[in-house]
């Protein structure tokens, strides 16, 4: 279907968010706001206190005897395994627990207190096993096996588990000849980094309510980025037909990846299957949100990079050990993404990458805004900084010389599409006044600047699809139906904007159908991977073009004119030939009467569109090479100008600047809002955040002990820029930007710390005490 190429006026403007009125008045409905009446049961979870143990016996008799307890389920009831890319997880542990906090049993009772009390009364006998708390050790032959049956697990064909080990995926990339390249290098840098686990911390904790009807049909209400993936995975696992499982997903109070795939949502369903007629609500406490929810997995990365005497990159060796946690059903693909993007946005002729996803007895690693890229770039961004210094080249010049450009062949053999990374680097360098050494504001402060670049491709199955349909209403407005979720990023607003621009309606004439409901909403794979503006945007654009075509054909017939002479402007069909005009009011549903009462033309207009990339190819399992590993990359740069207090080690960001090539900024203010929020989340992860694990037990599962950035931590000056080198298959040229702004942050801040102090820390968080002690050890405080 041809879609007109002219750029509508609404594209590149920033109309207000379509969801915002309800959100400022308290009217917007989130999952926990839905009322379920007196029949509601409350579910709580019995959890493992051990990181690794066999379950010898579970005695639920005392809990069952507690008045008010309705249902108790354990792993015995549901031996099936669930998982997105590798089915390695049980809904409730069956024979073995693999992390502290793993669900062992679920209880539904008439209130939360009784359910909680019942959990305490469940007695579990364990036989303790030797745990694994380190990913490098876990990958070694000495480590005890966490999933001895891994060889039997169902797995996607692009994931390569190594049965008989704890390695659930090994992604290899081999390009050129690294071993030969080292001798041509004039400078080589070797360094290791450790990036700890962090938590997503949506302000809305996980919540899901499930209900089974008498006929066995299940409805799940969930705070969800992925109603369709949840329907698919939960239904399949529990032996329900997908169409007999309905997922309703209201507004999401923050996701960042942790409400993608299936994390906790299968538990209330499993309980509700045994409590027919009762809605069963499971709501995580903040503590559970911290220690049982999927985490951003830890990474130990070893890097070796080299360049020639002119500063041209020659080789990279990158070995990554991802702390995948107790289950890597989602994490295996994060480590794959880390593999196929393992050079960062650099053009390097010789590359050897090994990315290992390793089971440990730590919390489960899952999708987190950026999907492996913040972790990966933490290493890459800092070794490149040192390599530039070692070869004696200005760091920005080094980045510009070596950053990947359109036409280059990347690490997996894919030809890069046109990108504006060079311009992003320029904007950031200018923004932080790069090249000018500036004085600290006082004698007890050290000042430094750092810059880093990053890239990220949507990490997803090759055929992740989107669909949309648009119904015209009697009043001439259009209702846009999508399956992609509004998680704060502005997806509904951009969908409305694309529909309005394509049909020829004013923004205020668009309604978004909601909440998402798999019974009515069109299919969308998941709201993840910065893929909605691009993928769902295409589906909406096609649906809108289809609706527009139907309208124009109807009017053309009524006026006996050519469709090519007609247009729709602000909801009015106009003819450039006859200068006739007709409002969409009424006609888009009721049609147009023929002259002299001789019948009718047209009828209710419903446009439909779908989009699925068809060109992503597989990669050779031994070399990681193939024609096209991914759909595209969004690239960009970030820089900081900071001061470090010598008395406290505290970092103050004087200026934060970022620039990304978004293809086309459909809504510039939303793009900038993503860049600000993402950069701030990156700063928070760089300076404050770490899940502190001791023997597998999280030591800081509260906002008091796990600090995230607050208003007082916002840099005084923050600048965001976008560059627009269009994406050939994006709607109006757009690419995604949701995740990218936090991916270079840790590296850029690490480089600024190095510039200020000469100290290179092994990894975040760059806490004041850590920075202070490092400065003390380095003898720069005297």
């Amino acid at each position, binding site marked *: 279907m041809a879609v007109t190429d002219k750029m509508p006026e609404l594209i590149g403007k920033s109309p207000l968010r379509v969801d915002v009125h309800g*959100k400022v008045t308290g009217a917007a409905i989130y999952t926990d706001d839905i009322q379920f009446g007196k029949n509601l049961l409350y579910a709580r979870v019995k959890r493992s206190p051990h990181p690794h143990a066999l379950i010898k016996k579970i005695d639920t008799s005392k809990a069952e005897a507690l008045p008010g307890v309705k249902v108790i389920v354990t792993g015995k009831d549901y031996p099936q395994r669930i998982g997105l890319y590798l089915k390695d997880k049980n809904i409730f542990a069956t024979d073995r627990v693999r992390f502290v906090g793993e669900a062992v049993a679920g209880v539904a009772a008439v209130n939360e207190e009784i359910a909680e009390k019942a959990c305490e009364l469940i007695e579990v006998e364990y036989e303790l096993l030797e745990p694994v708390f380190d990913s490098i050790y876990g990958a070694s032959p000495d480590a005890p096996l966490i999933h001895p049956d891994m060889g039997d697990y169902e797995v996607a064909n692009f994931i390569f588990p190594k049965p008989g080990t704890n390695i659930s995926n090994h992604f290899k990339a081999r390009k050129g000849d690294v071993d030969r390249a080292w001798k041509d290098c004039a400078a080589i840098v070797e360094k290791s980094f450790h990036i700890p686990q962090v938590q997503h911390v949506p302000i809305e904790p996980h919540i899901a309510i499930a209900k089974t009807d008498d006929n066995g049909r299940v409805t799940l209400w969930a705070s969800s980025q992925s109603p369709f993936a949840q329907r698919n995975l939960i239904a399949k696992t529990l032996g329900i037909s997908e169409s007999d499982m309905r997922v309703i997903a209201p507004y999401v109070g923050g996701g960042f990846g942790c409400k993608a795939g299936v994390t906790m949502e299968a538990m209330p369903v499993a309980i509700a299957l045994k409590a027919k007629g009762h809605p069963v609500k499971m709501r995580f406490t903040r503590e559970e949100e911290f220690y049982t929810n999927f985490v951003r997995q830890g990474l130990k990365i070893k890097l070796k990079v080299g360049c020639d005497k002119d500063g041209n990159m020659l080789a990279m060796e990158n070995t990554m050990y991802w702390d995948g946690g107790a289950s890597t059903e989602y994490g295996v693909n994060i480590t794959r993404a880390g593999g196929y993007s393992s050079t960062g946005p650099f053009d390097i002729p010789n590359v050897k990458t090994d990315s290992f996803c390793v089971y440990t007895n730590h919390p489960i690693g899952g999708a987190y805004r950026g999907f492996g890229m913040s972790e990966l770039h933490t290493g890459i961004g800092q070794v490149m900084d040192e390599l530039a210094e070692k070869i004696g080249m200005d760091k920005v010049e080094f980045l510009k010389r070596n950053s990947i450009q359109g036409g280059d062949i990347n690490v997996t053999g894919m030809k890069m599409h046109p990108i504006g990374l060079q311009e992003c680097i320029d904007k950031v360098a200018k923004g932080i006044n790069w090249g000018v050494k500036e004085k600290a504001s006082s004698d007890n402060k050290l000042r430094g600047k750092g810059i880093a670049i990053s890239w990220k491709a949507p990490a997803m199955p090759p055929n992740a699809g989107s669909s949309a349909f648009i119904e015209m209403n009697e009043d001439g407005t259009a209702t846009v139906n999508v399956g992609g979720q509004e998680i704060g990023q502005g997806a509904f607003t951009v969908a409305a904007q694309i529909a309005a621009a394509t049909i020829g309606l004013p923004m205020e004439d668009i309604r978004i159908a909601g909440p998402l409901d798999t019974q009515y909403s069109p299919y969308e794979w998941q709201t993840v991977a910065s893929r909605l503006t691009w993928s769902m945007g295409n589906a909406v654009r096609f649906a809108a073009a289809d609706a527009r075509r139907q309208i124009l054909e109807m009017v053309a017939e009524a006026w006996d004119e050519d469709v090519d002479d007609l247009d729709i402007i602000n909801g009015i069909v106009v003819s450039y030939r006859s200068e006739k005009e007709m409002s969409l009011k009424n006609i888009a549903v009721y049609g147009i009467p023929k002259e002299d009462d001789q019948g009718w033309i047209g009828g209710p207009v419903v446009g439909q569109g779908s989009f699925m990339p068809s060109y992503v190819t597989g990669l050779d399992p031994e070399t990681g090479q193939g024609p096209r590993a991914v759909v595209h990359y969004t690239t960009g740069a970030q820089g900081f100008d900071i001061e470090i207090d010598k008395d406290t080690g505290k970092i103050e960001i004087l200026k934060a600047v970022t620039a990304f090539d978004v293809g086309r900024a459909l809504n510039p203010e939303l793009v900038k809002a993503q860049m600000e929020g993402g950069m701030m989340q990156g700063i928070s992860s760089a300076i404050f955040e770490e899940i502190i694990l001791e023997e597998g037990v999280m030591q800081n599962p509260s906002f008091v002990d796990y600090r995230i950035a607050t*208003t*007082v931590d916002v840099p005084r000056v923050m600048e965001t820029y976008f560059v627009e080198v269009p994406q050939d298959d994006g709607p109006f040229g757009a690419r995604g930007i949701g995740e990218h702004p936090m991916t270079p942050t840790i590296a850029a801040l690490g480089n600024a710390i190095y510039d200020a102090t000469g100290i290179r820390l092994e990894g975040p968080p760059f806490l004041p005490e850590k920075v202070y002690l490092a400065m003390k050890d380095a003898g720069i405080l005297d």
Partner: protein
Amino acid sequence: MISYHQITLKVNGETEVVNVPANMTLLVMLREEMGLTGVKNGCAAGECGACTVLMNGEPVNSCMVLAAECDGAEVITVEGLSHNGQLIKLQEMLIAKGGVQCGFCTPGMLISAFALLKRNPDPSENEIREALVGNLCRCTGYVRIIDAVKASVEK
């Protein structure tokens, strides 16, 4: 057995009489007894600010207040900020400046900002930041929220 208390209070200008168990928080009473679900439950531990309401003119974490303590109190929630569909300036500015993303922190943020402007009609940027330090937001990076409060100052 948990005892019940009959309390009389004003919520968003309306006088309400409710029978509440002794262990019920103001948060739960507002959400579950009165259907004021604009008040959000983010941590139930007084740490995130999502449940902030005005109690007798002061911003409080409603998860940290027992409903039974509210006898005679005047409570204002996010639902009580606008009147007859007319948004207050803070709400308008939050929209105009783009200070809303997922929206879950928004009700508490608005109440804290509203309380700030009541006690200090012309706050400095530092005062704005300090007034909102107890309201966590994970989406916006706070930049546009701070801008919205600045823009709401009546000059």
